[in-house]
């Protein structure tokens, strides 16, 4: 079981009031987590990754175990602590507004 923490606007969009729990077949990677997230919550398609390139949107970051994984390759295996649900996979919106 993978735990995913979303920014508040995406939780609102997906009608969620807490973190997401996903079951993933095979290796847990950024790509497999986001694929599973978008399958479970199709309204999130295009809001985290671009439709055409599947690249992360510029003002979002992926945090894993206290580290910024935004620039890791999408198929890099996530740490065991994330794959087992001990630590969440976090989607973070960049701070802005001055």
């Amino acid at each position, binding site marked *: 079981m993978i735990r995913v923490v979303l*920014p508040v*606007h*995406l939780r*609102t*969009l997906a009608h969620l009031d807490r973190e997401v729990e996903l079951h993933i077949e095979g290796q847990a990677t950024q790509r497999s987590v986001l694929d599973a997230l978008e399958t479970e919550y199709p*309204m999130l*398609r*295009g*809001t*985290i990754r*671009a*439709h*055409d390139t599947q690249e992360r*949107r510029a*003002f*979002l970051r992926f945090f894993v175990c206290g580290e910024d994984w935004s620039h890791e390759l999408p198929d890099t295996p996530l740490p065991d602590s994330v794959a087992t649900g001990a630590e969440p996979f976090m989607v973070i*919106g*960049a701070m*802005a507004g001055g």
Partner: protein
Amino acid sequence: MSGVRVLVGTRKGAFVLTSDERRERWDVRGPEFAGWEIYHLKGSPADPDRLYASQTTGWFGQLIQRSDDGGRTWETMGNEFGYEGMPRTHQWYDGTPHPWEFARVWHLEPSPTDPDTIYAGVEDAALFRSVDGAKTWQELPALRDHDSAPSWQPGAGGMCLHTVVLDPSNPERIFVAISAAGVFRTDDAGKSWRPVNRGLHSEGLPDSEAEVGHCVHRIAMHRSRPEVMFMQKHWDVMRSDDAGESWREVSGNLPSDFGFPIEVHAHEPETVYVVPIKSDSEHYPPDGRLRVYRSRTGGNEWEALTEGLPQKDCYVNVLRDAMAVDSLESCGVYFGTSGGQVYASADAGDTWAPIVRDLPAVMSVEVQTLA
């Protein structure tokens, strides 16, 4: 009992304002989609309970929302706006080629006859259509196939296709306006397009009367007379009596002919409304006085409408999609400001009163007349 539903898009959400036909007491509901920019929301003329909204932010991109119950509940629809064909370029601000990149939906124009058909004008400029109630979108690619497209340049707000006008008498004919390319018209439902900008004069262009390159801010028509078009250009208020084939200036006695919105009275095709703005760098009313100007002669002779509007120290702007008219017997006129006020007139502009004063900056105002 008849009434109106005013749909307001703001920088931080959508609001729905409703009233009976007297338009004196208002129910204000919102914000919907709190925290998101709502560039435009509009109802289907064929089904007043069917509403569409363009919801966007720089963080999460573009979403399209649909309501089937007049705005009480909403469903997230398809948001994949993929350009057709090979990648191509338009001109960037510095004159270099720049790849077409989707940024957002500026304007949604529902079909007058089919609730499931809707057009979307987007940045970078292109026209999309959905025929399944906004589940999926397809570009009408012939517009960007036009020979002039590689020379199109963005205006200060981006290279947006911001206006879509559907000819109610001819479903094959569509007008679009692009900043800063100008007006284009199709007479075959989007299979081919041509610029219809003859008569426009823009001093910012090397050839001030070029076929393409004009910063048209908005165009409008009266549904009973679709060959007559009115235009608010970057500077100049213009009129065409031949469906855009030729334009002539009708700015007349306006205190400034810069502005964004232009609207036509619901029952009087020669009655037109604009909101003069001081200049392209001073986006507020001349003299700090918020005045709507009305022409009852199809342009050239304009009268200031001031009763109920602030006549000192007012420095707000009114954006291109932020004015609308209802079709009640006494035509209502509505507009929203960058200061968050939404003003209404139930007597065709003679007197005004704010519906709300303190919304986020208003980006769009549309109105539905309810039976």
